[in-house]
């Protein structure tokens, strides 16, 4: 499941040239911008049926923290 999440994240941001790690600070990716931000929140909403409020999302920095947040809501 965790690996599928990484694939969904890559696909959402059109990242094809590298592998992602859960320790990555994803907001420092060169692909990260306001559309990426919207898209990741929307992807999690649709794929996991979890709405992460912006106030919560802005305090999430690594992929691990994002995954943990999804697990919290399950």
């Amino acid at each position, binding site marked *: 499941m965790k690996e599928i999440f990484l694939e969904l994240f890559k696909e959402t941001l059109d990242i094809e040239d590298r592998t992602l790690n859960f320790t990555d600070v994803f907001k420092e990716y060169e692909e990260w911008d306001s559309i990426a931000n*919207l898209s990741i*929140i929307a992807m999690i909403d649709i794929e996991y049926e979890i709405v992460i409020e912006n106030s919560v999302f*802005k305090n999430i920095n690594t992929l691990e923290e994002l995954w943990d947040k999804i697990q919290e809501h399950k």
Partner: protein
Amino acid sequence: MDKKKLSLYGKKILVTGASSGIGRSVAIENASQGASLIITARNRDRLNATLNDLVKITSEHNAICCDLTSKDDLDKLVEVVEPLDGVVLNAGAVKLAPIAFINDLTVNNLFEVNVQSSIRLIQRLVRKKKLNKGASIVFVSSISTQKATIGNAVYNATKGAVNAFVKSLALELAAKQIRANAILPGFVHTSILDNAKMSKEELEAHLKNYPLGRYGKPEDIAYLSTFLLSDKSNWMTGSLINLDGGFSLK
């Protein structure tokens, strides 16, 4: 003060989505202009809070709890209201979804709340002859129909549908001297936007797109609604009016 000089004196006006934000402000401002209000919303507690504020202004107001997406609720609402001199269709929903993440649920929900419920309500009011001669119908649409924003494609499409409906409605009802217009507000800071996932920093950055230097307040929309509901605008129909602090100029 002579109440009869108020611009909406003696007018009976229905406002949807009146429990908060723009709808609440529209109700309060129009009551202070002498109108008798019928307010609707889904949340009974918040609706009653608006009603309590209205009765401090004048006494002749009613609150009817109503889910506009329920045909039964709509039928009951139209059954109990006395013939109206004005309607403000303000109830609406917003959800951000980039194109790749639009799904049927988002499309269906937004079109149901923003378009279909308004069409059903107007259809029933017309059919049941609950709109007086000279009545004015005001839709709260969006400036997003004139200037696109990212992540709002479905919402913008719903408001585009509203704009098109307003024009046809205005034409069909003109023979009865019933008018229909739409207000197209720019960004108004209300709780609906707390769900729009914009951070404080993004809000501050977006503000530079507003030449008048501020976002809209609910009262800005309320003041224009008063004019559109009053007889002072009685040669105005089928108009889509930008109300956006200059946002659409840039």
